[in-house]
């Protein structure tokens, strides 16, 4: 069955430090992969997505993610974290089913940023 694993439930980093959030997926074919962010009091927002082609994808807010087929991973990175990045981050795999995209989400990683 398709699944998404985010091994880190909670991560704390200092402002200005680099960040990597891990995501592993289980899917039989080439996956569609996504990262969404949920800021306090706000709905989920798409950060970036991978469909095909270049395995390093750039997103909004200075985030990037790299698809590694051999490791079934799609880790999210940012070189320098800002206090406003504190939020919950969700990785998702898209299953094209019946002509639409059903997203399967991981459990999320909550990011805290120390000043």
């Amino acid at each position, binding site marked *: 069955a398709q699944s998404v694993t985010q091994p880190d439930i909670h991560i704390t980093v200092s402002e200005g430090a680099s960040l990597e959030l891990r995501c592993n997926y289980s899917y039989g074919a080439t996956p569609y992969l996504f990262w969404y962010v949920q800021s306090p009091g706000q709905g989920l927002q798409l950060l970036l997505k991978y469909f095909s082609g270049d395995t390093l994808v750039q997103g909004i807010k200075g985030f990037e993610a790299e698809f590694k087929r051999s490791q079934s991973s799609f880790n999210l990175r940012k070189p320098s974290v800002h206090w406003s990045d504190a939020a919950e981050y969700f990785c998702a795999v898209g299953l094209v089913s019946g002509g639409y995209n059903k997203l*399967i989400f991981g459990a999320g990683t909550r990011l805290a940023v120390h000043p």
Partner: protein
Amino acid sequence: GAGVSQSPSNKVTEKGKDVELRCDPISGHTALYWYRQSLGQGLEFLIYFQGNSAPDKSGLPSDRFSAERTGGSVSTLTIQRTQQEDSAVYLCASSPPGTAGTGELFFGEGSRLTVL
């Protein structure tokens, strides 16, 4: 507003009562999704509507859960005889036509349900 609107934002109910949660998608969006977000569980797919096609109800956890979408726009998620394990945030999302496969869903802020 321009975004997905959900109401109520918070609902506290007693075990055994029925509740209705409403979602007003972005105008022009033909696809509508309901997800459930439980603490530490991520987002769980519940149901999907697309235009006039039959909905995909494969994620509904029990027959106490149902949803309808009237006129291809507003959707209502109904939970009958609520149980404590139904406590969660219920998220609605919509997407515009032609984006099947793109994965970009536009989410509302959710309805937090607490069953006492």
